């Protein structure tokens, strides 16, 4: 009850943004508190990639490599140019990286628990326990894991859990993005910027049919052709 009322007040405060968008977000707001309650307000980190703002500068890629010591010709994060060859003027970029699934197949299949969820619910790695069986790599429906050439262990984006985040910073890619195309924060905190964003914007999860419940959201460019 309490939650519903809060959701309602929040709804009123942001409601002026647009009835269509807000009613959609209200749907989300109604389904999410049940998750919050069971998790007892533990953080659930998520990220938004806004296609409307990304210009494809790849600063995020470079920052990631530097902070997380990713070997030279490997990457945890890649910005793919998905511009339609028919419409060269409408640039579109997509972030390729771990989707931080809530129901993560990589965690489920790892026989040594090297790939696991940390105390913040982030999918991350314990490099020493990995035997490099590559099961997590083939199990990930997003194909974003790889064996690090130097550590010989599997890895993928972990929101800089053991680097920037541990030191109280935002993930390297978010810090590096000059265009605010990336938003990072706690989805369980109603007052976080990311929660507010998701309340007012339509966002997509990648491949929902895989049933992995990703924490990475995409805001697509929608051209109505005016």
């Amino acid at each position, binding site marked *: 009850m309490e939650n519903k009322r809060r959701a309602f007040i929040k709804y009123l405060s942001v409601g002026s943004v647009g009835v269509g968008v807000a009613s959609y977000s209200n749907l989300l707001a109604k389904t999410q508190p049940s998750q919050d309650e069971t998790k007892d307000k533990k953080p659930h980190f998520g990220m938004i990639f806004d296609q409307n703002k990304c210009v494809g500068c790849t600063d995020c890629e470079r920052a990631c490599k530097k902070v997380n010591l990713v070997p030279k010709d490997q990457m945890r994060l*890649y910005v793919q140019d998905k511009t339609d060859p028919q419409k060269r003027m409408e640039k579109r970029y997509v972030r*390729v990286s771990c989707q931080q699934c809530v129901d993560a197949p990589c965690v489920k299949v790892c026989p040594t628990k090297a790939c696991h969820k940390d105390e913040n619910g982030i999918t991350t790695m314990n490099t020493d326990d990995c035997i490099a069986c590559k099961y997590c790599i083939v199990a990930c429906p997003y194909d974003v894991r790889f*064996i690090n050439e130097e550590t010989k262990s599997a890895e993928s984006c972990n929101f800089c859990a053991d680097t920037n985040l541990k030191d109280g910073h935002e993930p390297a890619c978010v810090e590096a993005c000059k265009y605010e195309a990336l938003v990072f924060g706690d989805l369980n905190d109603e007052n976080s910027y990311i929660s507010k964003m998701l309340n007012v914007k339509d966002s997509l999860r990648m*491949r929902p049919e895989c049933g992995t419940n990703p924490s990475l959201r995409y805001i697509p*460019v929608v051209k109505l052709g005016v």
Partner: protein
Amino acid sequence: MNSAINYTYTFSHGVEWGWPIAVYLLLAGMSGGALIVSILIRHYKKQEASTPLFKAASLLAFVTIMLGMVCLVGDLDKPLYFWKILINYNFNSVMSIGVLALCIYIPLSFVMVLYAFEDEILELLSKRFTFLKGLFVTVMQILNKIRPLVNALCIAFAVIVCAYTGFLISVLVRFPLLNTAVLPALFVASGLSAGIAGSSLLAALCFKEDHHSNDLKTLHKIEWPVMAVEIMLLGMIFVSLIIGSDAQKAASAAFCGGAWSGLFWVGVVGIGFCLPIVLNFLLGKKVASSNLAFYVSSFASVIGVLLLRIFIVYAGQTYDIFI
């Protein structure tokens, strides 16, 4: 809207699980299959002595599963860390469950070898390592008392080992060809097929079993229904692909027109299914009962199952949901 957001660049480039895994899948299936049929035949015919077939099957089962372990561990990028899998169990992982099953299955298959070669080992021990003889006799006394239990456990774990190799790869949602419910059943059936062919081959070659002996005739009889089941399961996979989603339709190229379809038709169907059928049914009684037909068709069956595993592993990982 989705097509602009769905990326197609990915981080694993190509096939992550290669031929060592395919060979392991063959060896594990063959090992389990050999034990299942040989124990069932003994039970069914109420045999007491160690028949050539039982000797061949138990030896084959133990040797193949050990070679399989070599392939499995050798395929890890950090093989020296293999023991981590034994102390950090994850009961959600098919691989952990499989390793646990193997930890029970491998000793069981070794006990089968002891049963099969009890007399031979005893003879060897009385000649050479006489100090071990007493120990061996005591151990065998205990083992022989619990033989029915060991047999039952052995069949159960042999089925688990065959099936888990299928579940291992059928949980991979990214690959439409692999992510089907019938794959574990296909792996049990083709494991049986390889086990039957492999153990009759070994029985004839090493243990001088006559090709027309009673046991081999029985094996020969069950060979064909098993093959029919295999063909049916492959057909089910194919149908589920062509009537499925776009990604599934694209993956049906594995069977028709794609890079791996040649391997399927020539290797799996031609060598694995057609060659034995032609030799045994279409060329008349004389050819069918010849030595040549026996060896060639058994050998072709084993090769066919190997090629099926290679096909599943490689074609399976070639067609993913990124289209």
